[in-house]
Every structure is written in structure tokens, then in C-alpha cells.
């Protein structure tokens, strides 16, 4: 008998295997079609815009488009000494158009990011160029301001020639590409971003640690108490969880102010003199205290759900086999809670590293995080490409932790309430 005839057929005469495959495929498509609307929605409104942020962060066509002739003329210039007459002439012609279109302010802002001092000399040039005579533009431009005779400024312009740049990313870690094309650190006095990244990591780390130290005992208590008590105490965890973030931050602002209740208490127990009340807000202390309280439920809930599954007889067994309660706890109970610890710590760390609202309100200057810097560049300095670059660097870090979280815990195991 040949193999063909051995195959089982359905009533329609199609081999069963094929028919099953067909049904399977149909089911797959059906399931996918159900997910498709949300997936498509998120791709269009969320995932692609994040990709757009990347394009924005490396895009540098603005200056290239504003000074087309200049960059063509600059191609032949080696950048060692002052550029030749053609470059000056091309620059004059490009700039004349910008002045006529009244868009030279944008160029000034862009070039000022590259090197300080461009704003004033471009403004001066905009005024003076109206009286320029034909020919010998080099001398005429150099006469407007002595900085135009400084080769550094011309190099700065040339650096903006390419369409794409990674300079925003370098700036985010306090580096820049110097005149020789080497990547170097900025002056020590201007290294603000590196400090900010380190502070963000430090605050996220300590907030996670404090949350863990506070959540472990109460999660244990909640998991071991009889239900009627633990339900009541669970409300203490869940109510802050459901309460508005701003309300909780506001209450910390009231508690931590100089005439606030916490300070009153310190004075009352004699820790501080009445005229020497410590500043607990608008600095790191405020950020630590408020963020720990706000993120604590996210640590308690995963720990609780793991501890709930540990049978109390295991501890009794450990003790009856001769361990002291401490040994029994350390050798039996604690290792069993590690999955919960991992889940809680990763979740709190992910949330803490991107925190914005609370640090902005109670953090002052020394308690703000990288998010606050991103918001500043979005809203105040309007350097959107830099804000995008910083945001994506933060995102890369968060996604790395998210990936670990997904491997260890699985996103579908996130516990809510």
C-alpha cells in the first residue's frame, strides 16, 4: 500500500491533516483580526511617533536648507584657515535671502547651539549687509564684527553641513565633536547632563531600595494575618494607589513645609530647635520621601501576591527541623519570595526612573530628574530635537529593564490591585 492511501480523510474527501491546518490558519487570522484594531491604533498614534522622535533628534536639514550655497562653497575648504572669498560671497548671498524672508532668527538660534556668540554677530550682519558693495565680501563681513574673522565660527558653520547629526546624543552625555572631528568631553564646569543621569539613577535606585525595605514587612503581615484584618489593612495600600498623584504630592508639600507637621513633630521631640527647622522640601529629601510613598503600593502588591502562595507550614517545618526562626526565614521563606522581589523592584525602578510630576513639584533644583530636563527643553528652550534625543536615551534604558522584566516576570503577570 502506498502512503497516500493511508491518510485519514474527512467526509469532504480532504486529508484530515490539511483540513486541520486550514482550520488552524483560520483561527489564527481570526485572533489576529481581533487584536489588529488596537495594534494599528497604537502603531499609528504611538509607536511611529516615537520613531518620528528619532528622526527629529538626528535631523539637521534646517541649517543645510538655509545655507545651500555656503555649504557647496565650503566643500573645497579644508577648515584650517579662514575660508576663501567664495565662501564669504556664498554666505552673503544665502544670508541676504534669509534676511529678506525674516527667517534669519532661526539660523541664529541653530548656530548658537553650536557655538555661543552667533546671535549678536548675525543680528549685526543683518543690519550692516544692506549697505554692502559688490565684491570683496570677505573684508566687508569681517569688518562687521571681529568674530567673523575668527576661523572657529566658520568651522562651527561647516559642522552643520551634513543632513543628519548625532551631536544631540553627544550633548546628552556632555560630549561634543571638536574641530578635528574627535569626540571629547565638554569643560568640567559645563558637564550638567552626566550629573543629571547619575542623579536619576541614584534617586531611582534608592527609592526602589526604600520601597523594598518598607514593603517587605507589610506585605508579609498582610499575607499572614487572618483575612478580616488583612482586608482592612489592604485598603491602606490600595487607597493611595487609587488616589490622584497630585493630591498625594500636595499632601507631602503640606507635611514637609517648614511650618509643616513633620517639622512641628521634630521640634516637639527636640530633634531641631524651633528657629532651626530643616528644609525638607525643594531638595532631594522631598523627592525621596514623596516618591517612596507614591511608589510603595507597586512594591507591596507583587510581594503580597507571591507571599500569599507560600504555605506557612514551610516555616514551621524549617523550625521543627532545628532552625531558629531567623534561620528558617532566611533559608526557607526569603528565597521563595525572590520572584516577588524581582517583579516589585523592576516595576518600581522603571516607574521611578521616568518620574516627572513629583520631582518637579517637591524636588527643587537638586531633586529633579532627567524627565524634568526633557520637559524643560520641550517647553522652555524649545530645543525639541535635543529633548527627543534625551527622551530616546532614557527610553533605551527603560526598554532594557522592561525586556528583563518581561523575561523574568512576563508582562501578562503584572498585578493590578
Amino acid at each position: 500500500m502506498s502512503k497516500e492511501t493511508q491518510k485519514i480523510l474527512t467526509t469532504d474527501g480532504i486529508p484530515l491533516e490539511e483540513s486541520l491546518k486550514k482550520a488552524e490558519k483560520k483561527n489564527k487570522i481570526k485572533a489576529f483580526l481581533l487584536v489588529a484594531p488596537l495594534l494599528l491604533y497604537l502603531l499609528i498614534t504611538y509607536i511611529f511617533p516615537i520613531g518620528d522622535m528619532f528622526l527629529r533628534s538626528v535631523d539637521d536639514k534646517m541649517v543645510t536648507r538655509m545655507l545651500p550655497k555656503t555649504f557647496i562653497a565650503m566643500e573645497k575648504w579644508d577648515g584650517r584657515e579662514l575660508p576663501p572669498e567664495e565662501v564669504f560671497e556664498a554666505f552673503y548671498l544665502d544670508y541676504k535671502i534669509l534676511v529678506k524672508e525674516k527667517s534669519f532668527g532661526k539660523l541664529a538660534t541653530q548656530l548658537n547651539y553650536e557655538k555661543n556668540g552667533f546671535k549678536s554677530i548675525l543680528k549685526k550682519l543683518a543690519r550692516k549687509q544692506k549697505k554692502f558693495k559688490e565684491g570683496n565680501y570677505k573684508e566687508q563681513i569681517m569688518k562687521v564684527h571681529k568674530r567673523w574673522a575668527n576661523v572657529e565660527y566658520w568651522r562651527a558653520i561647516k559642522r552643520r553641513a551634513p543632513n543628519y547629526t548625532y551631536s544631540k546624543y553627544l550633548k546628552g552625555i556632555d560630549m561634543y565633536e571638536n574641530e578635528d572631528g574627535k569626540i571629547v568631553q565638554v569643560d568640567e564646569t559645563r558637564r550638567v547632563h552626566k550629573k543629571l543621569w547619575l542623579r536619576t539613577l541614584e534617586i531611582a535606585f534608592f527609592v526602589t531600595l526604600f520601597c523594598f525595605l518598607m514593603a517587605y514587612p507589610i506585605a508579609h503581615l498582610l499575607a499572614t494575618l487572618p483575612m478580616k484584618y488583612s482586608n482592612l489593612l489592604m485598603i491602606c495600600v490600595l487607597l493611595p494607589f487609587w488616589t490622584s498623584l497630585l493630591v498625594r504630592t500636595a499632601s507631602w508639600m503640606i507635611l514637609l513645609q517648614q511650618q509643616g507637621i513633620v517639622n512641628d513633630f521634630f521640634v516637639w521631640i527636640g530633634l531641631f530647635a524651633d528657629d532651626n527647622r530643616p528644609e525638607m522640601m525643594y531638595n532631594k529629601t522631598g523627592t525621596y520621601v514623596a516618591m517612596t510613598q507614591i511608589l510603595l503600593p507597586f512594591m507591596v502588591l507583587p510581594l503580597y501576591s507571591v507571599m500569599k502562595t507560600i504555605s506557612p507550614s514551610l516555616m514551621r517545618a524549617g523550625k521543627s527541623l532545628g532552625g531558629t526562626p531567623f534561620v528558617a526565614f532566611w533559608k526557607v521563606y526569603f528565597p521563595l519570595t525572590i520572584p516577588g522581589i524581582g517583579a516589585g523592584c523592576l516595576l518600581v525602578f522603571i516607574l521611578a526612573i521616568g518620574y516627572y510630576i513629583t520631582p518637579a513639584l517637591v524636588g527643587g533644583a537638586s531633586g529633579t530628574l532627567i524627565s524634568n530636563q526633557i520637559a524643560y527643553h520641550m517647553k522652555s528652550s524649545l530645543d525639541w530635537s535635543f529633548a527627543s534625543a534625551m527622551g530616546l536615551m532614557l527610553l533605551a534604558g527603560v526598554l532594557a529593564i522592561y525586556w528583563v522584566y518581561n523575561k523574568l516576570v512576563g508582562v501578562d503577570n503584572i498585578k493590578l490591585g
Partner: protein
Amino acid sequence: MALPKYTEPHYRIWHYFYLFICGCVFIFLIAPLFVIFPLSFNAEEFLVFSDGMKRLDPDAFSLRWYHDMIYGTKNPWGLAAKNSFIIALFATIGSIILGTVAALGLSSRHMPYKGLIMAILISPMIVPLIISGVAIFFFMAKVGLAATHAGIILAHIILGTPFVVITVTATLSGFDHSVTRAASSLGSDPVNTFMKITLPLILPGVISGGLFAFVTSFDEVVVVLFLAGLENTTIPIQMWTGLREQLSPTILAVATCLIVLSILILVTAELLRRRSERLRGINRY
């Protein structure tokens, strides 16, 4: 949690120390919320307990800040509350529809690339809000929806769906699929099966996901800060502005109302969770 009689003294001390620590943590968690209550009834303008309040003098308490919240001149709270409720309502409806349908697909065992797709669908919950805010702002500005209610609602749907997806997939994990097959074999079409059989069974999960989506939208500041114009101000935006400029007792009156609201939501969510667990036959305790 009484200790057995034979417990040695130093473990007894340790045990009471442990209970003391737990008590402190619970106070740390819950006490800040209760500072707001009495201070919102303060008759004076200062955000500290006045001497009169400490003596429980009835004159030291008043409802003037609640009066100011509702009738105050140039009062922003009325408009803000209206906007907040409208935005949260539509964002919740959108999140529930998109999220529930997606959760149905995700919990099918035929779903391809389940892990990857789940990770994408949950990502708005994990990605820092400031980054979501920037990305969504760029998108809304491009399509001309910045500073409109529609733009904020669409943005809040993004942020709300992960919660619905999580709660509904959790409910579906204990779902007995033979009941839907039974319905189909009795001649019910898929839509009818969903409305009559599946939906009533997963309703607790849907509603609790919806509550999360509602609270997320109602409490969201970062994205709205980027998107809102003067017309679209919401309660969180007003609170944010107030807290940045000057902490006034009117804000505390608003905060008290919000706490009462969250207590209501918490009670609803708890009741739903218990009902859902009863329905699924899971006994947590």
C-alpha cells in the same frame, strides 16, 4: 497574629518590633491623605493647623474654601471638572472597546507572536510618561489635533488600553471556552455569543479595567500639559498650576473631593474583584 505561649522573650521583643515597623509604614502610606481633610475646612488662609483648630474651636472651621471652589470669581474648577469628566468618559469608552476586543484575540490560543504583541500593547504603561507625552504631542501637532478635546481623548485611549488589556486577559484566563462553543453549536452567531455569553461573564474584568482607564485619564497631567490649550484645561492641570504657583486652601478642597472620589472607585473595584473571583471559582484566601 498571636504568638504561641512558648515563644522566647527575645523573639517576643522582635515580634513587637516588627509590628511597630509595620504600623509606621502603614501610617506613612495613609496618613498624608488625611492631613488634607481637616486643613480643607480651615477658616484661615494658612496651610497649617491654627491654634483654634487644635482646640477644636468650631469657629476655626469653615466651608469657605468649598464655597470658593464652586462659586469663586474667575473660577477655573467648573470648566476643568467638566472637561476632565468628558475626556475621561470618552477615553474610557474608547479604551474599553479597543482593549476588550484585543484581549479576546490575545487570549485565543491560536494567536501568533503573542509575547511580542502583548509587549507592544502594554508598552504605554511602561514607557515614561514624559516620552509618551513628547511623541503623542508631535503626532497630534502633525494631524492638527493639538489643543483639542479629541486630541486629548485619543491620547488617553493610548494610555488607558493597557489596563483594560491586562484586566480582561486576566479574567479570560479562567474562562471556560466550552460555553461559547455550546452557544455556537446551538446556532448563535459570534456577535450574539459575545453579547449574550462572553460579555456578561467577563464584565467584572471589563469594568475594573475601565475604572483603571478612567482614573488614568482623570489623573493624567504630563501628556495633557503638552496637548492642552486654555480651553481644554482639566482638574489635574489646574492643580498642577496651583501647586506650582501658590498652594491655596481651595486646592485642598478640590483634593478632598478627589479623595472621596477615589474611595468610591476603590470600593467599586474591590467589590468587582471579589465578584469576579467568585464567578471564576478562584478562592484567593
